[in-house]
């Protein structure tokens, strides 16, 4: 890995102290971000399992319900469908808030008011029509839960990606750069010290010779 030393900094003890502080902070941030990353991945893997099973269920049942409705539609006139849908009208009310997962604000939706599932059967409508509506009524809670979990998973995935980039940037860029800057300052300071020592020795030598 190539590291880039900041050569335009002044190689002083003060600067080395400052760089040492920066290194300490960067290492602490790296550790904290790694902990955050681990926890987020753990949470994500729990949620994604649930997401997958809910989606499979919703896809299966919803396709079935919609196919039944489309089939029933062919046996009825548009006016009859509209009238039957109005008869079935079902109210739903949600509370929408947000919750915090490792500093990430994700949605939290819950049903406040849902009419109990009534297996309403109208005499004028085909069986498939009533069956599709009953199936959809049963799916309402699951669809809302799926929406909640899928959005949370999507937001978590984005955040995990961002955190991983930050960790990599610290691990492979910032920390090595600071370390090489400290090394550069240390070498310069040592060199200066050696130069001064040699200069003093030379002066002493010259003084001894003149005596």
């Amino acid at each position, binding site marked *: 890995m190539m590291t880039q030393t900041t050569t335009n900094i002044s190689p002083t003890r003060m600067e080395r102290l400052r760089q040492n502080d920066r290194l300490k902070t960067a290492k602490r941030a790296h550790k904290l971000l790694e902990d955050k990353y681990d926890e987020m991945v753990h949470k994500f893997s729990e949620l994604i399992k649930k997401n997958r099973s809910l989606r499979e269920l919703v896809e299966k049942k919803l396709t079935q319900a919609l196919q039944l409705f489309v089939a029933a539609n062919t046996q009825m006139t548009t006016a009859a469908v509209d009238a039957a849908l109005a008869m079935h009208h079902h109210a*739903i009310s949600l509370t929408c808030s947000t919750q915090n997962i490792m500093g990430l604000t994700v*949605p939290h939706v819950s049903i406040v008011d849902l009419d109990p599932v009534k297996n309403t059967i109208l005499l004028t409508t085909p069986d498939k029509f009533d069956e599709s509506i009953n199936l959809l009524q049963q799916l309402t809670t699951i*669809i809302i839960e799926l929406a909640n979990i899928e959005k949370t998973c999507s937001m978590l*995935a984005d955040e995990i990606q961002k955190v991983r980039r930050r960790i990599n940037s610290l691990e492979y860029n910032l920390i090595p750069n600071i370390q090489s800057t400290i090394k550069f300052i240390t070498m310069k300071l040592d060199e200066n010290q050696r130069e001064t020592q040699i200069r003093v020795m030379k002066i002493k030598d010259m003084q001894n010779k003149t005596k």
Partner: protein
Amino acid sequence: MNNFSKDIAVIGEQAIVKVFSAIGYDCFYDTEPDAVIARCQALETAGYKIILILEKTAAQISRYLDSRASLAYPIILPIPDTTTHSNYGMQRLNQNMEKAMGIKIGGNL
């Protein structure tokens, strides 16, 4: 439609999504990608929290869906339709998994 619940909306072909009105969702019959995007923006402004879109249409406006990914609300959820089996919802789920884990895992986690 007069009594909008302002909670859940469904966008898609009339023949398919009309049934959702029976369970309290507000239905909008747009199918063209531009019209669907405009409808989504209008619904977002109106304060809808969950918007269901048929997978066929959702696949065509994936760039718009990506642009809304960082917002908590509205939750835009692709749902399957009866005619095509694009599996767009599952594809997005796998994309999320790839994004989070860094690798594509084909099967279950």
